[in-house]
């Protein structure tokens, strides 16, 4: 199963037979005070810097979320897309909780975007899937619904099935759906990691779609979070994760993902790892 995302000039293929695709998570003001303040003022320079840093670190897709309180998110999204176009041609993942922002973003975007996100809630299915269909985009689908975020595996699979079914009715194929089975903190529930990994493997085996995950949730409340996130990501890739939404500028994360490619036979002569290593630790002359 291959999911293809495009900008006007670049194409990214996500698939189980492909190297892991890192979707850069840093363009998101939640919990990032400086970026939030810059966006509130309509200053796009920090957003551009975040984009460049992530692309340099190996992000192949950039998630773009500009939801700050008290600002016109639709207008900000359009400004952000224009600003990003000035500095990079990597395909984008248009991320908002508001359908009207997704709609405006998709309207302005050149290429085939990824939409973040739909989930099993009735309102979301009704509002977001038609947008995805109309723009022939791809979509991230979270396995939660009106009843909340499930902690068990069967409910996650059932929600994934439901979304896939609703999408099919609108002509959205499996290849354009990327499931996010939602990893929760292992600090609050020590079975949460196993549940997420089991869900990933189940979705891969039963539905076969590409999968993403926001890995940083898993380590909330524990020390040495990078180590936890990295270990979880490596295990998740083995289970069927293909395009994590993560921070490629964190060496421990990037290193883990490049190495998973090597261990799954997708890094010829280990060249990607060696290149990444040299970039991280440049030789001194």
């Amino acid at each position: 199963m291959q999911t293809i995302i495009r900008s006007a000039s670049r194409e990214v293929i996500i698939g189980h037979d492909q190297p892991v695709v890192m979707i850069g998570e840093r363009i998101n003001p939640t919990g990032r005070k400086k970026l939030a303040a810059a966006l509130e003022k309509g200053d796009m320079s920090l957003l551009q810097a975040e984009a460049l840093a992530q692309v340099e670190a190996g992000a192949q897709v950039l998630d773009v979320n500009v939801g700050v309180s008290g600002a016109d998110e639709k207008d900000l999204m359009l400004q952000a897309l224009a600003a990003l176009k000035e500095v990079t041609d990597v395909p984008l993942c248009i991320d908002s909780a508001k359908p009207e922002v997704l709609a405006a973003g998709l309207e302005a975007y050149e290429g085939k975007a990824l939409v973040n996100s739909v989930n099993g809630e009735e309102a979301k299915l009704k509002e977001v899937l038609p947008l995805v269909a109309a723009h022939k985009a791809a979509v991230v689908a979270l396995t939660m619904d009106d009843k909340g975020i499930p902690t068990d595996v069967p409910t996650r699979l059932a929600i994934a099935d439901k979304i896939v079914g609703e999408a099919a009715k609108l002509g959205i194929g499996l290849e354009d759906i990327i499931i996010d089975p939602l990893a929760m903190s292992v600090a609050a529930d020590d079975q949460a990691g196993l549940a997420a990994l089991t869900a990933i493997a189940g979705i891969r085996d039963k539905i076969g779609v590409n999968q993403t995950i926001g890995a940083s949730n898993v380590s909330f409340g524990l020390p040495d979070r990078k180590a936890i996130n990295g270990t979880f990501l490596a295990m998740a890739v083995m289970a069927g994760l293909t395009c994590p939404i993560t921070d490629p500028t964190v060496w421990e994360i990037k290193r883990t993902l490049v190495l998973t490619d090597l261990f799954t036979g997708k890094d010829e002569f280990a060249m990607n790892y060696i290149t990444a290593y040299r970039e991280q630790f440049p030789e001194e002359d």
Partner: protein
Amino acid sequence: MADLNAIKEAVNKGKRKDITGLVQTALDDGADPQVLINEYMIDAMKEVGARFEAKKIFVPEMMMAARTMQTGLDVIKPLLEAQGSQKEVVGTVVIGTVFGDLHDIGKNLVVLMLESSGFAVHNIGENVPPETFVEKARELGADVVGLSSLLTTGDPHVKATVAAIKESDLAGKVKVVCGGAAVTPKFAVETCGADGHATDAVDAVKTIQKLMGLN
């Protein structure tokens, strides 16, 4: 005489298996249940909170300590009821996640820590509309209402909920405290008019105690 400090130590270290026996022995030896709670268990949780804040311990350890305390309380409660008394309650808190948001982990940690600090806590769940916050706060006689919001899209709901409380008959009687990843102190207090903001479960206990004049 039973070693009451062992009770404190058990809560402190989250030794859930030990606590039932320790509390039972203490009660059998004639220890005052109210003293056990107030001077040993709540004290232990204060230390746990301080060590969490200092990043000496982590979320699972804090949860284990709080659960150990709850297990100990389960032993004490029947005795209090038999005496016709109740656990002393320092205050009543109604807490929920705002409308449109289903996140519960952080909020549930706050519930655990408030209960372990002697509060009566009513967790009214997630995706709670503003009017439900008002109704429940009135019905349950809340001193404080706690709002949790993890999504930036929750901002209007935080604002609407604070406004609903401040415009109701509860105004001036019920304090409102906001928390969660999406909520900054500035937004909670200045923009929405909440009485306080908390960054985590330990800070929530401190903030609420301060607003109620308890510390």
